[in-house]
């Protein structure tokens, strides 16, 4: 089994469109994981059927029992997250600010603060129109702990891939360089970096690659919209060479991405196009790279 994690640092570089196309090409031979739990989109392109749902609990939130509370203010004093406020002469917890650290409940002299586990999202298993199984999730509104939900999606997808003896696990990662991305990357065999030929694309590629490098994961790159800016493309290529990152493909600026998306189709299904050919070649190239990995 080879785990390929697709990340980009910057949003909107085409990461999910590529990931969904690869998934479509590989059919039932791959398991798909959408780790962008903050703004999950892959299910739209792969027509996921949401056949199994599970509540995801993580972290806790303080709840003050107003009957027993003596309004001494000890809780408010120790809270470092400004989560306890007095309204109408009563101490109350703002659940959005509460970190679930328990400090207030430990110092309350009358034990009037309970810690309640919080549902922070939904976890799903689906079949896709490509015939593959897909693991995905939806983070609750204004919820925290996306890193833990990402870890859950990844772990379940990995188990599924191994149990069903599938060849590939294709993971759509999240943007940025913080906790969800760190969770997405852990244990990957190959990081596929999707960037674009813009100054922001290059800037974000360099930052996210430093993270990938610290995990010691083999890396490959697709430069999207390479014809937007020849100078930046050159700079990206120089960076890839310097860091020994394999250049998989340079893909031209193409509104087919948006057009296919508007019909909820992967690029592969949308009909013959240069883009389709590029993506087919890219996936073959990526598969060849993974064959050489131990």
């Amino acid at each position, binding site marked *: 089994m080879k785990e390929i994690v697709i990340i980009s640092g910057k949003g909107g570089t085409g990461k999910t469109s590529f990931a969904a196309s690869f998934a479509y090409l590989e059919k039932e031979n791959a398991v798909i994981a959408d780790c962008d739990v903050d703004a999950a989109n892959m299910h739209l392109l792969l027509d996921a059927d949401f056949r199994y749902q599970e509540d995801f609990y993580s972290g806790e939130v303080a709840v003050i029992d107003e009957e027993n509370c003596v309004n001494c203010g000890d809780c408010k004093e120790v809270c470092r997250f400004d989560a306890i406020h007095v309204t109408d002469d009563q101490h109350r917890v703002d659940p959005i600010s509460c970190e679930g*650290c328990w400090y207030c409940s430990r110092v309350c002299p009358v034990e009037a603060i309970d810690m309640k586990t919080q549902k922070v999202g939904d976890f799903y298993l689906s079949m896709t129109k490509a015939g593959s199984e897909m693991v995905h999730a939806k983070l609750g*509104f204004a919820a925290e702990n996306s890193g833990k939900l990402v870890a859950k999606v990844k772990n379940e997808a990995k188990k599924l891939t191994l149990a069903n003896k599938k060849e590939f696990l294709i993971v759509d990662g999240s943007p940025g360089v*913080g906790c969800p991305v760190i969770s997405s990357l852990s244990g990957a065999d190959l990081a596929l970096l999707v960037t674009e030929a813009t*100054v922001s694309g290059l*800037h974000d590629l360099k930052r996210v690659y430093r993270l990938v490098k610290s995990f010691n994961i083999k890396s490959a790159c697709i430069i999207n919209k390479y014809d*937007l800016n020849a100078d930046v493309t050159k700079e990206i290529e120089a960076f890839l060479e310097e860091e020994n990152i394999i250049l998989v493909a340079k893909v031209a600026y193409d509104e087919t991405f*948006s057009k296919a998306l508007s019909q909820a189709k992967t690029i592969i299904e949308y009909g013959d196009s240069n883009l389709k050919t590029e993506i087919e070649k890219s996936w073959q190239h990526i598969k060849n790279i993974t064959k050489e990995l131990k």
Partner: protein
Amino acid sequence: MKITIASGKGGTGKTTISTNLSSYLAIGADVVLADLDVEEPNSKLFIEGDLVFEKACDKRVPRWIKEECTLCGKCEEVCRFNAVIKVGDEILIFPELCHSCYACSELCPTGSLPMIPQKIGELKHFKTENLDFVEGRLDIGEEQAVPLISQVIEYVDEKFSQDTIKLFDAPPGTSCPVIEASRGSDFVILVTEPTPFGLNDLKLAVETMRVLCQKFGVVINRHGIGDNSIEEYCNAEGIPIIAKIPNDRRVAELYSKGELIYPKIQEFETALKQIAEFVGGIK
């Protein structure tokens, strides 16, 4: 006046709108733009200015003082984040897991775990002719963006008067970092694009804003590239559409070079004018 520019989906044009809008508004008002996308800060690429201030930002984590510790294990017991662990006769601390709640430090009977600062990123303040720009930048490998975001907001609040227009370029998504970047603002502009991804993520962002009881409106970027579903959704939900920015490859080309758009593309300037008028009418 504080305005956050956010979006569920990444790459919809938050930074393009933040940088252009701040530059446009700065022609006739005091404006500060703060880049709160601390994981991948990009705004600086579009703004040339002189560095006037910089500082390291930190979070507080406990440090173990062996000599005073009685190994009672209270610290491990009270930490909900597995950041403090007793192994044999040692107390191990994992700073990246620490949420800085101070419980271990303040509940330690011997005061053996003082909280000390640990660097998580940097804040930089730049000045151009008529625009102030503040950037937060998270160190690579740090997991928690929120403490840095709140320090950047704090800096902006302290440094600039009530009369200054404060624009915050938020990170993508709908979780903790976005909430931190949005909750103290007077208004949130949600930038989206007319595709199923844009719509899906806009809905998530709208629900998040509603949980926060936050006032918000929508700017549709790359208008014309997809379908009408965003407009239909906004109309059905009674969400104001502040402006529609036409899809235009020239915008992508200017953006790719790190250039501002509105001085060169009339339609873009018109959209900024609509946003400025809308924002001027709030409150």
